[in-house]
């Protein structure tokens, strides 16, 4: 029975990698082909020289950011979850918290087959719901556009990410204050002293996360 489960999971995992790769390549081709197809419809092609110059000015930063995201989030999300997350985007503000929340709710541990299943289910569901919300929103946009864009509601939508991190902070900080205090203090101090860093918050996740991991390792060693 145990052998069957090992074999089953290995087959499932191999198939996930196969499908993940095929789907990712197809989506890549579609995304890169779309500007040319739209250009053909509009009667004008992209200016490749301008694309090259634009890539050198902003693209390199995003390329480095992509490498960091790949290295950090792939183990967190597992195979199926990470293929899907990189296809559908919105990682920090939606997919990562969603998968972590699902993992905790299901009581599974990172790196286990259960986490692979839960993470894939969570990210696929989240992606599908986002697609449906956006499709419905675009369909109904004319009637709701005025309401959603009303100045009264703007502070709410400008604060979606703080609202998300407030809720998640309570969940994560409360059992782990020993781990959380130092990175929170260090980051606050850094952003207070160098306020221009707020434009690079996603890059500051690396030192903050490294410090948190270092402290948790010391605690782990002490507990052993």
């Amino acid at each position, binding site marked *: 029975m145990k052998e069957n489960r*090992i074999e089953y*999971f290995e087959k499932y995992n191999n198939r*996930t990698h196969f*499908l*993940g*790769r095929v789907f*990712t390549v197809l989506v890549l081709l579609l995304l890169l082909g*779309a*500007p040319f197809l739209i*250009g053909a419809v*509009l009667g004008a*092609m992209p*200016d490749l020289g301008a694309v090259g*110059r*634009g*890539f050198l*000015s902003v693209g390199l930063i*995003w390329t480095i950011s*992509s490498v960091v995201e790949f290295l950090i989030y*792939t183990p*967190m999300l597992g*195979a199926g979850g990470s293929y899907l997350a*990189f296809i559908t*985007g919105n990682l*920090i*503000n939606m997919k*990562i918290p969603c998968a972590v*929340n699902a993992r905790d*709710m*299901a009581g599974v*541990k990172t*790196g286990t*087959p*259960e986490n692979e299943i*839960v993470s*894939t*289910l969570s990210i*696929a569901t*989240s992606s599908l719901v986002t697609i449906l919300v*956006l499709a419905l929103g*675009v369909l109904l946009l004319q009637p709701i556009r005025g309401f*959603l864009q009303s100045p009264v*509601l703007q*502070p*709410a*939508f400008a604060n*979606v990410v*703080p*609202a*998300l991190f*407030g809720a*998640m902070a309570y969940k994560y900080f409360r059992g*782990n204050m020993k781990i*959380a205090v130092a990175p929170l203090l260090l*980051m606050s101090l*850094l952003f*207070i002293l160098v*306020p221009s860093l707020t434009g690079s918050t996603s890059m500051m996740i690396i030192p903050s996360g490294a410090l948190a991991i270092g402290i*948790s*390792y010391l605690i782990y060693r002490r507990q052993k």
Partner: protein
Amino acid sequence: MSVIAELNSLPLYLICGAIIAFVAVICVVFIVRAYKAGVAMGMDEKVLKRVVTSSATFSILPGVGILLGVIALSGSLGLPWPWLRLSVIGALHYEAQVAQAAAEHAGIGTLNPEAMTASAFATIALLMSICIMWGMVLSVLFNRGYLKKIGIKNPDQNETSLNKKSGFGDMAMSAMFIGLVSAYIGSYIGSFVSSDGLFSFRGDYLPLIVVFVSGLVMAIFVYLSEKKKKAWVDNFSVAASMLIGMTSAVLINLI
């Protein structure tokens, strides 16, 4: 027909809608496969259903936030392209920044609907796709090898993996998330304290209040779930905490 009218024309809706529909099919394929595999590996179906329910409710509010990003970009790029970008691969904080930089290099200066040309749009669209595709490229090339190197435990470890005290890998992932949240909350504190001059305390305080309110509401939900044994609130706790936190921003802004 103006360029903006062309950017909102039926052919563009069809092109973008077809790609989005394809990605929706991919999601469905992964949901069905993962659910079946979970059942086959002996996971509790109730847990699997709760994962789906909570992930769906969790995603509705951020989804509405992303929809606002679509609306914001639709003024200069039309509706179909931002709809595609933010449904697939895009990120709210990324799109406007890259689109603006692309507009500069395409020679129209800013993302101005009156200055938009067909060629500038095609250039902007291609640069937006190229700049953010690297996560997908890395996934295709290295996902399998990277995960193999880190190692996923075999199912014969299941009996212990769900019950034993967690190993360092799990602690490290939680720590990484704590680091992520700390960086963002630190940025809100720094913005409030020093964005208008060092220690001026004249910056935007709304994000900090929203963090506090949504955290407080989350604490109430955790109390209900753990002390009052109302586990069903877990399905809605994050989304409801966010909604109340966001509402507090509206109320405070009105005062």
